[in-house]
């Protein structure tokens, strides 16, 4: 949407009106609460009117920019981090509606802290839903994170014991999974309050399904009033919901969004990025998100070493293989492409893209069949070496040639980048191609 405002010549009262009407519809269709939308559109109007159109922007872009920035700002400025308590264990309590994804999020949070080198404890305090305890136990076992709680105990008892266990075994943070409940179910809210008073959590996180509609406001407000929340976890953002509930919840509670759930796997939990969410709600695709996802997969140290190599022009085939591996660790190529607006919704994948997946496999095999010396200096790969490599990797000499040619091109591209670096700042990882696709 909004594309048509990119070529306007002048920012008149009239085309602001039209643009804002479109913004309003876009936000409503993204499930932002209509009252929030009202206030938001009003503020954008105030900001837009009387503002000079920057020389480098079209008037339409200016409106889009104001909308986007305002959205990002409302969503929380820079990201929010959960502070660990000075005296462990840090206690984190998850609450929310049935089916919002509390149990899965508890396991994902456990994984998140485990990866940071901490020793979390998962607490199954949902004795309401049949087999909820078993679900958390199964997930905990997969992750090798201890889980306490049984379905026959009272939640308060479970949590009290959990705190003892954490203290004795030096585990922190303690992550409490509670039973899903409606925000109008007084007895259940009372149980939550009792639990909160008992365990005095450092962070109460409200788990919110990204597909939630207008009611997100009522739900968040009531939970906040009845129990009090400190931050929000948005789940199921791997679907195609625009996630306007994020803005509603943020606006109505004033609480930050700390994490987003982006898949069914236990490590599919990411810190919240207001900028990306703003783009998503506006319907501008998740290109930024994609690029950053690619960057996150590249270990910081490796990235630095790589940049150094590029600077010194010592980027080898070994490094190339490593890059391919990282590219693939982002997930199947299809999934990566799904994140780019252009491909989104495209049925299946064109065959040439499927071909690329096998091409990557082939490249890895070929590089694997080279000697260390060949990987560092491909110049020495003569005819007989090519034959050997082809045989070793189960490919043909033509395949080997193609790889060497592509590698030479990559090196050439990197030389170009090195010159760019002076102007644009630090090199930023691998996915140049993806970046181009997104633009």
């Amino acid at each position: 949407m909004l594309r048509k405002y990119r070529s306007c010549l002048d920012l008149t009262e009239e085309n602001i009106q039209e643009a804002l009407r479109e913004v309003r519809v876009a936000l409503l269709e993204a499930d932002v609460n209509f009252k929030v939308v009202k206030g938001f559109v009003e503020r954008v109007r105030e900001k837009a009117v009387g503002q000079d159109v920057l020389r480098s922007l079209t008037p339409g872009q200016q409106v889009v920019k104001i909308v986007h920035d305002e959205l990002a700002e409302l969503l929380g400025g820079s990201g929010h981090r959960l502070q660990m308590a000075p005296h462990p264990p840090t206690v984190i309590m998850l609450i929310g509606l049935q089916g919002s994804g509390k149990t899965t999020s508890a396991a994902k949070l456990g994984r998140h802290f485990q990866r940071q080198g901490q020793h979390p404890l998962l607490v199954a305090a949902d004795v309401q839903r049949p087999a909820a305890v078993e679900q958390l136990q199964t997930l905990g076992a997969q992750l090798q994170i201890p889980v306490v709680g049984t379905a026959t105990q009272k939640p308060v008892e479970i949590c009290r014991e959990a705190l003892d266990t954490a203290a004795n075994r030096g585990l922190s943070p303690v992550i409490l999974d509670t039973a899903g409940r409606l925000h109008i179910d007084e007895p259940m809210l009372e149980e939550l309050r009792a639990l909160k008073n008992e365990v005095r959590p450092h962070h109460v996180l409200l788990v919110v399904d990204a597909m939630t509609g207008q009611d997100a406001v009522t739900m968040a407000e009531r939970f906040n009033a009845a129990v009090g929340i400190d931050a929000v976890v948005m789940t199921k953002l791997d679907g195609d919901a625009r996630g306007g509930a994020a803005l509603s919840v943020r606006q109505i509670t004033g609480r930050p969004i700390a994490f987003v759930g982006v898949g069914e796997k236990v490590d599919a939990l990411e810190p919240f990025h207001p900028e990306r969410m703003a783009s998503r709600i506006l319907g501008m695709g998740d290109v930024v998100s994609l690029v950053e996802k690619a960057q996150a997969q590249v270990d910081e140290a490796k990235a630095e070493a790589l940049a150094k190599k590029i600077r010194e022009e010592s980027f080898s085939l070994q490094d190339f293989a490593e890059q391919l591996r990282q590219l693939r660790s982002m997930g199947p190529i299809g999934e990566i492409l799904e994140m780019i607006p252009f491909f989104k919704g495209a049925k299946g994948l064109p065959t040439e893209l499927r071909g690329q997946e096998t091409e990557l496999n082939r490249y890895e095999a070929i590089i694997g069949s080279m000697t260390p010396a060949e990987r560092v200096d491909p110049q020495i790969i003569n005819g007989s070496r090519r034959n050997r490599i082809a045989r070793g990797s189960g490919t043909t000499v033509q395949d080997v040639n193609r790889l060497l040619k592509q590698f030479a091109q990559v090196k050439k591209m990197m030389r170009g980048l090195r010159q760019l670096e002076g102007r644009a700042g630090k090199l930023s990882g691998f996915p140049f191609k993806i970046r181009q696709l997104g633009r």
Partner: protein
Amino acid sequence: MKVLAALADRVRLSLERSRNALGGGLSAILRLARPLDESLFEELEELLVSADLGSLTAREFVERLREDVRRGRLTAPEDVRSELKRFLEEVLATAVSPLALDQRPAVILMLGVNGSGKTTTCGKLAAALKGAGKSVALAAADTFRAAAIDQLLAWGERVGVEVIHQAPGSDPSAVVFDAVKAVTARGVDVLIVDTAGRLHTKSNLLEELAKVKRVVGRQLPGAPHESLMVLDATTGQNGLAQARTFHEGVGLTGLVLTKLDGTAKGGIVVPIHRELGLPIKLVGTGEREDDLQPFDPKVFVSALLPE
């Protein structure tokens, strides 16, 4: 920062005010002799939007009312309300449809996104059918989510219905194949199949579901007799995308609207029904065994447009 906080407070206050103004729903909007003007239509539109009908559908409906007023068919604000109600009921009248249970065994496939309430609906439906004198079996074809089978087993135990299952991680099609075979041999009336929750954007998982359906169809011509998408009433506009994709990829015979016991109205079923013509076969209103009812447009519309 202070400025920002103050701004946030101001917005919150203004929200509160507009909420209070809207608090009474329709009657507040149509309070006393207010004129039939633009602000009335705007508020009606907002009322529909707040029930998740979507801004486009809401606008369309309100446009209809506006047209009626223009032509002199509507003159009093109170009539606008009853007209909107009548219109919504008319739209949803075609959404009433009983479950297809004539065949024996009748196979009901329950599908939907994660957390929509499939397993709970399976349990409640089993209880209801059993209460109606049918013999019922459940099939645990959600072999993916941790402890999903245990959850269905717990339901089976609670309502006294057999649960046909295999080990976690086994092929859902195989589970369903065995279940259909077993219930056919035993002369069971209804088989309810609980499938794994999946976001409609995961095409491979959708394909798995289509396969389950094909397997059942080959084994038992005409089956599954119902393929119901379970939809959480708190779902916003994404519900339409869900229904479209599941209907296209698997083929649906209807919807189950769950969690209507909260404050969400489930208005998204209106655009879904209008676009895809799918009936709403059941509504869920809680976690107890008997919290499952057939869809009633009158009740639904009164909840959508409170007095």
